[in-house]
């Protein structure tokens, strides 16, 4: 289901919102291959650790992955042997405060916030934060060039965070 294809005359903001909602639905449903398909070949996924304002190169991250790393993540999750997702976390996220602007070379930067509730083995957890997507228009859709997720608890003691954020 790709709603944005049905709304070719929508504004840029409407189209990027549709994309973020699609991504959220795909991730919440653990549709791993579909999620990987949202990313470009030059993808970079970054989730800083300890603080938001750190050096991506020389400070440890929660996630620091290029396309190959994302493929490895998806292969692992799809295998049935990732114990952290056996059983899977039940997850549901709300995306809001979507704002976007055009960058050079046709890229679009999208800022938004999210609130994700996870439930697994009788334990609720909340993951919240803001995210920045850099999207590239490709034919009638977008692909993710860069995604950065700033968790409010990125300096907290964390347990299993192996579902798709």
């Amino acid at each position, binding site marked *: 289901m790709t709603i944005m294809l049905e709304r070719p005359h929508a504004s840029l903001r409407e189209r990027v919102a549709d994309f973020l909602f699609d991504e959220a639905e795909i991730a919440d449903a653990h549709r791993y291959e579909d999620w990987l398909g949202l990313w470009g070949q030059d993808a970079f996924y970054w989730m800083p650790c300890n603080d938001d304002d750190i050096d991506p190169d*020389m400070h*440890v991250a929660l996630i620091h992955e290029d396309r190959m790393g994302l493929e490895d993540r998806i292969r692992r999750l799809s295998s049935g042997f990732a114990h952290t997702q056996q059983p899977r976390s039940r997850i549901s996220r709300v995306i809001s405060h979507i704002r976007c602007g055009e960058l050079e070379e046709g890229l679009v930067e999208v800022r938004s916030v999210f609130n994700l509730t996870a439930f697994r*083995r009788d334990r609720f957890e909340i993951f919240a934060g803001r995210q920045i997507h850099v999207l590239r228009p490709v034919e009638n859709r977008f692909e993710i060039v860069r995604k950065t997720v700033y968790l409010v608890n990125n300096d907290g003691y964390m347990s299993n965070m192996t579902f798709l954020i």
Partner: protein
Amino acid sequence: MNPMRGIDVDRLVQPDRVHSHVYTDLTIFEEEIERIFTQGWIFVGHEGEIPVPGDFRQRTMARQPVIFVRDQHGGVQLLMNRCTHRANAVCHLERGNQPAFTCPYHGWRFKLDGELAVVPFAERFPEDFDRSALGLRSVPRVEAHRGFVFASLNPDVCPLKDHLGPLVMQELDDIADLSPEGGIDVTAGYHRLRYAGNWKLQVENAIDGYHANFTHRTHMDNVRFRTGFDPAPLTSSAAPARIHALGNGHCRWDSSSLNKSGTRAFPGKTPDPGAWEIYLDAMIAAHGKERTDYLLSKQGSHLYIFPNFSYTGAHFRLFQPVAPDETRVTLFPFLLKGAPREVNRKRLRVHETFFGPAGGGQSDDLEIFERNQVGLGASLDPWSLLTRGVHLEQQEADGSVSNQITDELSNRTIWAKWKQMMGEGAMA
């Protein structure tokens, strides 16, 4: 002296098995906090975390709040995070750099070495008020080896070198000497983890070759997919790799045989050959060819120091017991002083692939610990077995005892030390 209240250590910990209660019982947990984490030596941090005066980190020792700080004279201090006036915490940030610690309640101000410098409106205290006796309380014993700082709340604890022993000190030397300058930089941040399980589940897992092919099957599969090389035989019962008991409950997993085959060499995660050559040349210039070959063959070895330290190649860890079924673990990925930026950058990338809450390996360990705590609740047969390889242990020339990598020598040596510290009269 805090007598054991009806805890029969000899029954709970036997040479070939341990009882579930050692992982689940609150009374035993409280005794561990007292006997092991208060009376003994524990790991608290590395000097490389706080390189300049004013740098500090909050830590806990036996659940008590302490400040790990570089003082105004360049020394390393461990101070109780408690104002000597009315017990307010004087440091409320997890980490940072400050010129002093000022109590927010009544304004008492302490220098970085703990000395009380300012008492507002001091004239209203009685005549015998002695400011010099009211500095922040120092942890009584703090000693380091190659920057690794250990401490004890027990002023009468043995010297650190007796706790570590020569074999462990050599292992710490080998970690520090991975730097051409002989020192590590611990300013690259932390992974902070928690799991709903006993702290000793992490302890036993620190040196456990048997679990790798099963718990970490997805990692093995990814290595096979990316490199065409199957790493699973390296942690099978046919592998040449060994576990060594180093005395006092400390142990090591010698993975030099794994390294030669490049298990961790994911494409894209190894440094550019040019940067690696620069690093190699610097290492050989600093340590000589023979020692450099030896040090690099050990990359990825695991080390466990009783009770709360482990090392796994790209990082070391600190274990923090919170409750019988609640544990916090801090991972310290570190950089090598004098190595090219590219080499250090790739160390972090290798670490992130496997470790941390979103990584593809360690997250499964935490899941296994939580399932372990569930299983320990079954009481009909309350024993965990420790017998693997017990009849195949070997005495080594360096004084260590060794076993094949999938054997349970590490569990046995850890439990023997635990029993010694928890047994009757251990604190006499």
